[in-house]
């Protein structure tokens, strides 16, 4: 009984493999140390670091991510019978599944799980900052809390939740039965919980969690206690996950579009994820490299960032920001796509300047690689880099501005339906514009030098990431909720959620501009008496934001279970995902639709985006075509 369970892919085997993995790492560490006669032979930190790298692989193997490939690699004939495609009960969501719709929901739910944990940490940060002096936690713990907060929300929420939404929607939108590589897709997903759990486990490490911010600057991160290794390695798994998904999106979008779906008939969400995926594939290896170097410095005594050995500390920042500036667009472009979908549908108008919208995405991708050092104006890098970076940063605001103006023009004279998705979308436009403005201000070297490392930066990043990314995420979740669940959410609760968040978001973050300019430093658990009043107001407001999130959670859970049935196309949208049932059939389509027009021809009489052939008669033999495809 037990043995049979352990042989099958699943949680039992994952547990067994993980334990085995720890033992292997123990053997590896002591064995190697003995071979090179390092004393002492047993070293806990060494075992831990090797385990952090390897045990996840054992876990992934145990849960079943590699079974198919290993069968293939052992030279056997592998026939895909689609046994692990589609969910029949909620239990299937806890297994390796290859259906993009299941994976999309897995992604979204797991991301929101980490969002709530990360959000809780934000509440702790605000509780500590409610008054000057020490309230609850010592400075080191404080550093740990804000570091894990930012890391979780960036790497385990914003980036993957967009991948989740896109996973669900894109194959449907372009008329594909699934993603190009369904098993790689499953692997991408399963690397996420691994990364997230690892980040959380760092709190148990001796010396506390990683505490050098989400940026983990060297040499701080090289000298920090072992908790830092949890960051260094978890980020590798999160990064590998997003590279694999990005590659999958690109191949899917390039090779699997329905007949007639030319690039300029693709919905902008598809364009947005296409651009994002390019960014991911090109930029993410840089953060991987930066963390490889940190781990080499930490564990094996390399000298990349050790000045006394000739290393270069600033090099970390260059490599890190060469990823992390593009990464801020990785965290924003998919949201741009969501907004275009929601606005066009809810304003009943074609997106204004469709082609400019697509081209400006590509422009952002290109320009995004030319601005990284605007994060380093005060780092001590060569002075001559500053002005070029200031100019390129100002230039990148142009394509961003084009998008904002196009959205406003889309709204202009539209028949606006101000329901929940639309509220979030319009709220986004306002908030993101403010964040963009503070961004351009920060690009100006003199101003940036003045407000560097102050709460002005915190204000900027939250206007773009919360008012920007998160608002688009909410818009998207509300918008596609009926498609994913087949049910409608509660509109009144949705509106309440929006207004509470919108108002108290602004009370929380707008004053940060002010106290930032006055010099309140970021990433410090204490501050001068003069900032006390504002901080109290900010903390109180932030708690309301936190509470409003519970309304969202309640609404989602209750509506999913017992909301009114939504129907296939509650928003009267033209794009393909709305032309199939809600939730969609297990293989998306009976026959691939043909695309005959643009995606946003709202208000054009008789306009159609895609047509469906009458469903073909039942295929003669099960196993014809793709269902029995054998891998080469």
């Amino acid at each position, binding site marked *: 009984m037990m043995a049979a369970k352990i042989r099958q892919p699943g949680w039992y085997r994952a547990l067994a493999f993980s334990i085995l993995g720890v033992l292997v790492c123990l053997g590896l560490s002591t064995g190697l140390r003995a071979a090179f006669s390092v004393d002492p032979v047993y070293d806990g930190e060494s075992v831990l670091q090797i385990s952090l790298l390897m045990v996840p692989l054992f876990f992934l193997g145990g849960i079943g991510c590699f079974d198919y490939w290993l069968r293939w690699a052992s030279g056997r004939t592998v026939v895909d019978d*689609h046994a692990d495609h589609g969910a029949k009960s909620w239990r299937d969501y806890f297994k390796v599944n290859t259906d993009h719709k299941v994976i999309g929901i897995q992604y979204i739910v797991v991301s929101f799980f980490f969002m709530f944990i990360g959000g809780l940490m934000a509440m702790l940060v605000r509780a500590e900052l409610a008054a000057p002096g020490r309230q609850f936690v010592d400075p080191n713990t404080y550093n740990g809390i804000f570091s894990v907060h930012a890391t979780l929300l960036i790497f385990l929420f914003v980036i993957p939740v967009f991948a989740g939404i896109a996973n669900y929607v894109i194959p449907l939108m372009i008329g594909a*039965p699934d993603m190009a590589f369904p098993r790689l897709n499953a692997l991408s997903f399963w690397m996420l919980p691994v990364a997230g759990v690892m980040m959380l486990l760092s709190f148990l490490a001796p010396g506390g969690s990683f505490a050098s911010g989400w940026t983990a600057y060297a040499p701080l991160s090289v000298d920090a206690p072992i908790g830092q290794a949890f960051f260094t390695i978890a980020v590798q798994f999160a990064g590998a996950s997003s*590279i694999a998904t990005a590659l999958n999106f690109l191949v899917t979008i390039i090779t699997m579009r329905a007949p007639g779906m030319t690039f300029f008939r693709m919905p902008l969400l598809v364009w947005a994820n296409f651009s994002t995926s390019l960014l991911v594939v090109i930029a993410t290896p840089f953060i991987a490299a930066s963390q490889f170097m940190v781990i080499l410095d930490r564990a094996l005594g390399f000298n990349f960032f050790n000045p006394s050995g000739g290393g*270069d500390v600033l090099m970390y920042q260059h490599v890190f920001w060469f990823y992390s500036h593009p990464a801020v667009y990785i965290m924003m472009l998919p949201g741009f796509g969501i907004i275009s979908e929601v606005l066009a549908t809810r304003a009943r108008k074609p997106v204004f300047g469709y082609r400019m919208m697509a081209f400006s995405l590509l422009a952002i991708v290109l320009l995004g690689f030319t601005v990284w050092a605007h994060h380093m104006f005060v780092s001590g890098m060569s002075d001559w880099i500053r002005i070029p970076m200031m100019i390129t940063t100002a230039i990148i605001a142009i394509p961003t501005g084009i998008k904002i103006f196009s959205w406003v023009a889309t709204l202009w004279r539209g028949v606006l339906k101000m329901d929940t998705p639309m509220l979030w979308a319009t709220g986004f436009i306002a908030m993101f514009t403010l964040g963009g403005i503070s961004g351009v201000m920060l690009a100006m070297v003199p101003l940036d030098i003045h407000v560097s490392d102050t709460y002005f930066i915190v204000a900027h990043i939250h206007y773009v990431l919360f008012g920007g990314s998160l608002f688009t995420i909410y818009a998207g979740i509300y918008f596609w909720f009926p498609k994913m669940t087949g049910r409608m959410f509660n509109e009144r609760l949705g509106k309440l959620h929006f207004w509470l968040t919108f108002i108290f978001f602004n009370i929380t973050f707008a004053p940060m501009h002010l106290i930032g300019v006055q010099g309140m430093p970021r990433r410090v658990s204490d501050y001068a008496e003069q900032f006390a009043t504002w901080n109290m107001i900010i903390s109180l407001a932030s708690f309301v934001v936190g509470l409003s999130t519970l309304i969202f959670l309640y609404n989602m859970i209750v509506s999913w279970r017992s909301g009114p049935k939504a129907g296939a196309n509650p928003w009267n949208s033209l794009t393909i995902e709305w032309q199939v049932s809600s939730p969609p059939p297990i293989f998306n389509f*009976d026959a691939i639709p043909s695309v005959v027009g643009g995606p946003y021809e709202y208000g054009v009489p008789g306009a159609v985006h895609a047509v469906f052939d009458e469903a073909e008669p039942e295929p003669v033999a099960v196993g014809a075509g793709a269902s029995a495809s054998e891998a080469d």
Partner: protein
Amino acid sequence: MEAASIPSPVGHEGEHHHGPPIANQSSRVNSEVLGILLFIISEIMLFGAFFAAYFFIRVVSADGWPPGEGLPVAVAGINCAILLSSSVTMHWTDVSAKRDNQMAMRIGIVTTFLLGLTFLFIQINEYLHLGFTPETSASASVFFGLTGLHGAHVVIGLLLLWMSAVRIFKGKVGPDHHRGLEVPGIYWHFVDAMWIVVFTTIYIL
């Protein structure tokens, strides 16, 4: 109004089980080949970041180069030749697969694999006789970082070649079934090409 002009939603609750519809092929590029090419772009960027480290440490902070008492250029040069010839045999294997020449395919893949293994062996041997370690200096770290990263890619490449070899020997590769050889092959060519860049920047320049 506009939505009404769309044929009624095709939906069914999955009452009968059948496979997915066959996806439309919207590009002439094969998806596996495109996938590996994109992955190689990622890999190039990974190397790029290590080259950035090389640049900063060698040029910007001018830590002395080369690390130690000069690098064994001749050995590395021989290694270069070995890896390049393995690319040739790899290509030959590929061509044989398309011609369904099973014998040539087997010889080709085994030779390629052994050449790769030899490269790795020589590289490790070189490491042991260099006279410096990563702890010696930043340039030494860069040396080990770049060559080690490349070495790791050789290992991955060899694993992939191993899988292809298994399938070849089981007779599963032929003119209609050669992606499982072609894709590892493309990766192998990348690993070889990358060595030329690493070799030039580390040993020659």
